[in-house]
C-alpha cells in the first residue's frame, strides 16, 4: 500500500461530503480498486449501498440459511438436528439433497393449515377493528387544534413507554375470571357468573387491537392531517352534504393511509407470538406459537423453517401492496 501521488482525485465539490473519506481511500486503498470506484460510483450510490448491505447481511443471508434448512432432512438426534443440504463428495462434486417432506407435512397436517387460517383470520379481524376504531380517532386528532393535536398524539404514543409484555400482562388482570372487569360487573349485579374471557379468541382480539392501534392511528393521522380542507368546502359548495363529502373526498384521499395502517397492523399480527400465547386458548394456536413448539419442543428445525418460509410467502403479497401504497403516499406528499 504505497501512496500514489500522480493520480488526480477531483475537487472537493465533486467529491461532496464524503470528500475526506474518498481522499483517504484513494491514497491508501488498492490502486485499481480506488480508481474503479471513483470512476463508476458516485457518492450517492455509496450512500444507497449501505442500507442494501445491511439488508443483505441481516436479512437476505439469514433468510437463505432458513430456506436451506427448510429443505434439509430432519435428524432427530443430530446436532444440529438436520442433515446438510450441500455436501462434498469425492471427485470434487457437490451433492445437493433437497427434502420437500417439511413442506409436504405442512400441507397435509390439518393442525398447520388450521393455524395458518386462524392466524390470517385473527389478523384480518383485528385489522378491521383497528381501522374502525383508529380512523375516527385519527380523524379527530387531525382536525383538532394544534395544541390539542400534540396532546392526543402524545397519548397515542404514551403506551410505548411501558413494556409491551407488561401491558399484555395487565390485560390478564383485567380479563381473568376474578379480574377487574368481572368483579366490577358482578358488584354492579349485571352478571351472576363471571364471564370467561381469558384464553379465548376474544382476549386475543382485545390484546391485539389494544397493542396495534397506534400503528393504525399514526399513518392515518399523517395522511388525514395533510388534507386540504378547502376540498371539503368545495364539495359542500357543489351540493354534497357532510356524509357525501366524506365518502367522495376524504375517504378516497385517505386510502393510502388506510392501506399503510392496515398492513402495518396486518403483517406483524400474522406472526404475533406474545399476545396469543399469554391471552389465547391452548386449542387454537397461531402460527408463531406453532413455530415455537416445532423449534424448541420438537427440535424439528426443518419443519420450523418450513413454517417460517410459508408464513413469509403468505405475507409477501400484502407487503408488496404496502410498498405500492407507500410509494403512492410519497408521491402524493411530493405534489
Amino acid at each position, binding site marked *: 500500500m504505497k501512496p500514489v501521488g500522480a493520480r488526480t482525485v477531483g475537487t472537493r465539490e465533486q467529491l461532496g461530503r464524503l470528500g475526506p473519506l474518498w481522499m483517504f481511500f484513494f491514497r491508501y486503498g488498492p490502486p485499481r480498486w480506488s480508481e474503479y470506484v471513483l470512476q463508476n460510483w458516485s457518492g450517492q450510490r455509496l450512500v444507497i449501498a449501505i442500507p442494501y448491505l445491511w439488508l443483505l447481511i441481516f436479512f437476505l443471508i439469514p433468510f437463505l440459511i432458513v430456506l436451506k434448512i427448510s429443505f434439509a432432512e430432519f435428524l432427530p438426534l443430530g446436532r444440529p438436528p438436520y442433515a446438510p443440504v450441500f455436501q462434498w463428495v469425492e471427485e470434487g462434486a457437490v451433492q445437493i439433497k433437497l427434502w420437500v417432506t417439511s413442506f409436504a407435512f405442512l400441507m397435509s397436517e390439518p393442525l398447520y393449515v388450521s393455524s395458518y387460517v386462524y392466524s390470517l383470520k385473527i389478523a384480518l379481524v383485528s385489522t378491521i377493528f383497528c381501522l374502525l376504531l383508529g380512523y375516527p380517532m385519527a380523524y379527530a386528532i387531525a382536525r383538532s387544534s394544534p395544541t390539542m393535536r400534540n396532546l392526543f398524539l402524545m397519548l397515542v404514543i404514551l403506551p410505548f413507554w411501558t413494556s409491551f409484555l407488561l401491558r399484555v400482562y395487565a390485560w390478564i388482570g383485567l380479563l381473568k375470571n376474578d379480574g377487574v372487569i368481572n368483579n366490577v360487573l358482578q358488584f354492579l349485579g349485571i352478571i351472576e357468573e363471571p364471564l370467561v374471557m381469558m384464553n379465548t379468541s376474544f382476549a386475543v382480539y382485545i390484546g391485539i387491537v389494544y397493542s396495534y392501534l397506534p400503528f393504525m392511528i399514526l399513518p392515518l393521522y399523517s395522511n388525514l392531517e395533510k388534507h386540504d380542507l*378547502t*376540498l371539503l*368546502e*368545495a*364539495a359542500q*359548495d357543489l*351540493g354534497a*352534504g357532510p356524509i357525501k363529502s366524506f365518502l367522495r373526498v376524504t375517504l378516497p384521499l385517505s386510502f393510502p393511509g388506510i392501506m399503510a395502517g392496515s398492513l402495518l397492523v396486518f403483517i406483524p399480527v400474522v406472526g404475533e407470538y406474545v399476545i396469543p400465547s399469554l391471552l389465547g386458548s391452548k386449542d387454537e394456536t397461531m402460527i408463531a406459537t406453532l413455530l415455537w413448539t416445532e423449534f424448541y419442543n420438537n427440535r424439528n428445525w426443518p419443519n420450523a423453517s418450513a413454517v417460517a418460509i410459508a408464513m413469509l410467502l403468505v405475507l409477501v403479497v400484502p407487503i408488496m401492496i404496502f410498498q405500492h401504497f407507500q410509494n403512492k403516499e410519497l408521491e402524493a406528499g411530493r405534489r
Partner: protein
Amino acid sequence: MQAADRRVEKKTKHEPWRDPHADAYVRIENVTKRFGDFVAVNNVSLKIYKGEIFCLLGGSGCGKSTLLRMLAGFEAPTSGSIFIDGQDMAAVPPYERPVNMMFQSYALFPHMTVEKNIAFGLEQEKGLSRNDIATRVTDILEIVKLGQFAARRPHQLSGGQRQRVALARALVKRPKLLLLDEPLGALDKKLREATQFELINIQDQLGVTFMVVTHDQEEAMTLASRIGVMNRGEIVQIGTPTEIYEFPMTKFVADFIGSVNMFEGQLIEDLPDRARIKSDELGGVIYIDHGISSAPGAMVWAAVRPEKINILRQPPADTSENCVKGVVKEIAYMGDVSIYLVKIETGKTIRVTLPNVERLSDDERILWDETVWLTWHGSSPVVVTQ
C-alpha cells in the same frame, strides 16, 4: 350620489340599482366578520340584483374573499345578515345554498380527473341522468377549451388550465349566484380577455348573477355592471365602472382606480355653478365648473386623471387657473400612449398621458428637459373631501 345626477348617459342597459323599488337578489345587511380582534369585514351593506356582474375590487387582504366565503356559507358573519332571493341564509348550510363558488386556490379534487371534477357538482343534483351530465360536462369543457384534457388529473395541468377547470366546475351547475374569487388571475392576457367575454356571454345566456373578486381593475372595468371598492374590510364606494373612474368619492378610490394626480388645497370659492381651490402643492388655483357644496375654507383634494391633462409648448392665454409650468423629467413610450412625468416648480411631479395618435418626427416630439405648460378643463378635476 351627486355625481350620477349630473351625468348624461344613455340608459340602454338595464340598471335595477337606480330603481328604488327593485328587489335585490342578494342583500347583505351590516355584515361584520371578526377573526379574534381582527376585523376582516366591517359593517358591509350591499345589494346585488339579478343578472348583474358585481365586481369586488380591493387590495390584498382587504376582506374580499372573506365576504365571498360568507355568501357561500363557509364563514358565519359575526353580526349582520345575508339574504339570497329573500331568504335569510344564517341557518342554511353551504350545500343547500343556491350559490357556487370558484375558489381562489381552485380546490380541485386531486383524485379525480378533470371530467370527474366537473361532473361532481352535477352528480349531487337529483334528477339528472348520466347522459345529461355527460353532455353538460362536454359543453362546458368546450367553452373553457379543455376538451383534450378531460382525462387528466389536476396535477398534470398548468396553473391556467387548473383555473379553467375550477371555473368550469362552478359554471356547470348553473347556479343562481356564482361567486368567483380571482377567476382569471393565472391566465395570459389573450386568454383572460377571451374568458372575460365568455363570462359575459354565459351571463347573458344563463342569466346567472355573478359576484367576482379581483384586484385587477382593468378586469373589473371590463366585466362589471357595478364595482364595489373595498378597503380594510369596508366598502368605500359602489358604482358603475364609469362612476368609479370618473367620480371617485374618496381619495382612496381615486388613487386605487387608475393613476391620478392629487392636489391638496383649500376651498376658496364654492358656488352652485363653480368652485375654486387654492393649492400650495400645485402653486396655483384650480377652477372647477360645478359646485362642491362643502364647508368654505375646508381642506380638499382635487384629483386630475393623467389623460385629462394637455401639454402645451407655449404658455396659454390665461395662465391664472388650471395651468402650471413644469419641466419634462421622464418620458415612457407605452405603445398606445406615452407617459410624461413633469416636475412643476413646487417640486411635485405630475403624470400626463397622451395618446400616440400619429407618428411624430423628432422636432415635433416633446423631449426631455423641455419646459411645458400643463392645462386642463374645468370639468376634469374631481374633488374629494376625505
